[in-house]
């Protein structure tokens, strides 16, 4: 009876049975402790479940009982809360203790580029006193960012700033980027080290210096100037930490720019090449083109030969020049298009005006031709009358002859006047027809011009 009962007892469904599994119970607790998005939590759970069960399987192979194997596997994972915390920090892009940048934004750029640190705004040789420490060491978003991916680390936590050493900062950078950080600091030689200055690395050089002191020292040594920024530069094998100006000088490349086309703005007059170059310089990192006497030369140099502008500068600056040129060209292109549109409008207006004028002229021609017919008829009538008068004269006598002669003279006058009017009308007609011909040929020329223009639709 009991046997039958056992057999017919409904089987536990997998979910109910798994809920009683110690591994599942432990995972439930972990997931509740994780403060990550739900989907992420589920993935972590799945992965750890796989680990625990695989581990338990292994332990069972060594002869442990199943409950014991499960217990051991879970125990190996350590304290649950601690593990949850580890996942949390790993899921965040930046893990770090007190010192840095809870606000650091590190994205896909971890492999790449630059952390920009502001250099003290005071002149380089300043001791790391109050003025320097205020502006120093705060890691900031850069004013101008090259197109490549960049890491920005912002703001050392204010309270710990004075305590943080440059060694700490470099260690942090190495941990977050996973690359070695090199400081190309030559001054180390004067401190008695025999290391190759270009290979000088943390930590033993910088552990004793606060971030401000360290950056001051490096900045002074590498000819940084007020307002300079510290940058992380990516090389094949490491990251280099130095003022931007250092990389600007070291990695400068020479490029010749053909500026011929840029000197003729479509809406304006010719620009002197030197004037053009001055303008470009004033628009791109003005400070880069001037040096500090006895400390460091300019970071970028520029010369103009005829219509070629030669620039020696960091690729970052070249990129800005190219961008600026592209924008100028685009503007010229726009001006050209505007000019064409205006020309099209003018042509169309001129054609319209001439057409209406031709219409007027034609109406004039019709009127003049009618007048001409009228005047011709008058003249013919006068001629016929004169002929009749001369005929009457043959049979006239005495006073009649005199009257006839007077009448003849009057008719002759009339004929003369109509003749003049005829000549006048004829020449006017000729002029009108002339004008029509001229206008029509101008219209034809304009229409051909309009048709030949790009983008002409109407």
């Amino acid at each position, binding site marked *: 009876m009991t046997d039958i009962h056992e057999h017919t007892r409904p089987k*536990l469904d*997998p979910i109910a*049975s*798994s809920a*009683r*599994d110690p*591994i599942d119970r432990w995972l439930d607790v972990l997931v509740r402790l994780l403060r990550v998005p739900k989907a992420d939590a589920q*993935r*972590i759970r*799945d*992965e*750890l*479940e*796989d*680990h625990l*069960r*695989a*581990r*338990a*399987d292994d332990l*069972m192979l060594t002869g442990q009982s*199943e409950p014991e*194997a*499960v217990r051991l596997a879970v125990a*190996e*994972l*350590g304290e649950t809360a*601690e*593990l949850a915390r*580890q*996942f949390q*920090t*790993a*899921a965040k*892009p930046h893990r770090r203790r007190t010192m840095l940048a809870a606000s650091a934004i590190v994205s*896909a750029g*971890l*492999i790449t580029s630059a952390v920009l640190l502001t250099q003290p705004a005071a002149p380089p040789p300043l001791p790391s006193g109050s003025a320097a420490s205020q502006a120093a060491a705060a890691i900031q978003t850069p004013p101008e960012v090259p197109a490549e991916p960049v890491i920005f680390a912002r703001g050392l936590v204010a309270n710990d700033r004075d305590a943080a050493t440059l060694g700490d900062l470099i260690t942090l950078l*190495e*941990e977050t980027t*996973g*690359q*070695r950080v090199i400081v190309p600091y030559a001054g180390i030689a004067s401190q008695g080290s025999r290391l190759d200055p270009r*290979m000088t690395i943390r930590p033993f050089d910088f552990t004793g210096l606060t971030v401000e002191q360290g950056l001051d020292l490096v900045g002074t040594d590498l000819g940084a100037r007020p307002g300079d920024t510290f940058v992380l530069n990516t090389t*094949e*094998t*490491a990251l280099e930490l130095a003022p931007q100006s250092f990389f600007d000088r070291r990695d400068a490349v020479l490029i010749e720019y053909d500026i011929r086309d840029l000197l003729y703005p479509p809406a304006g007059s010719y620009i002197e090449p030197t004037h053009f170059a001055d303008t470009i310089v004033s628009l791109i990192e003005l400070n880069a083109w001037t040096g500090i006497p006895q400390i460091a030369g300019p970071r970028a140099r520029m010369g103009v030969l005829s219509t070629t502008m030669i620039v020696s500068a960091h690729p970052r600056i070249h990129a800005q020049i190219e961008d600026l040129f592209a924008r100028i060209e685009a503007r010229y292109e726009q001006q050209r298009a505007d000019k064409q549109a205006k020309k099209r409008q003018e042509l169309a207006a001129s054609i319209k005006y001439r057409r209406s004028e031709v219409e007027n002229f034609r109406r004039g021609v019709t009127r003049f031709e009618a007048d001409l017919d009228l005047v011709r008829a008058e003249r013919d009538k006068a001629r016929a009358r004169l002929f009749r008068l001369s005929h009457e004269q043959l049979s006239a006598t005495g006073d009649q002859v005199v009257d006839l002669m007077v009448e003849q003279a009057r008719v002759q006058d009339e004929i003369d006047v109509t003749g003049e009017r005829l000549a006048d009308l004829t020449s006017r007609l000729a002029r009108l027809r002339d004008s029509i011909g001229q206008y029509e040929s101008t219209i034809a020329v304009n229409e051909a011009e309009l048709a030949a223009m790009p983008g002409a639709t109407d």
Partner: protein
Amino acid sequence: MPDAHHRSSPKLTPQHSELLVLSVLAEAPSYGYAIAKHITARSADAFKLPPSQLYPLMTRLEKQGLVAPSWEEVRSQSRADASDDDAPGRRRKWYKLSAKGRKRLAQRVEAHRRFTALIDAFIPTEAQQGAAS
């Protein structure tokens, strides 16, 4: 017994852990537990990458795009319902080295070589050591 002291498993720095994991994955795709076992076995038990370090590290590598994960359905013996074929299996997360991960590994190896070479430059040769003692 100085030897015994040396053998007490040296602590792995995060950089070294990353180097080891990337190296293991460079050979073949693998999953968390197998990676940890592999590292322990290869180092003759000298290096241990406990789950509390391994999985957060994998999370970070994945976030950085150095490894590409994929999932597989597997079955277990340790589960009460494992004998039931209809029961859902568990999911296993496999990791494969991405192109980016391969590049990172090359950088890490290069940096490691340079670093050890630098350190080596400071270490007295055996002859010098002999002369000193």
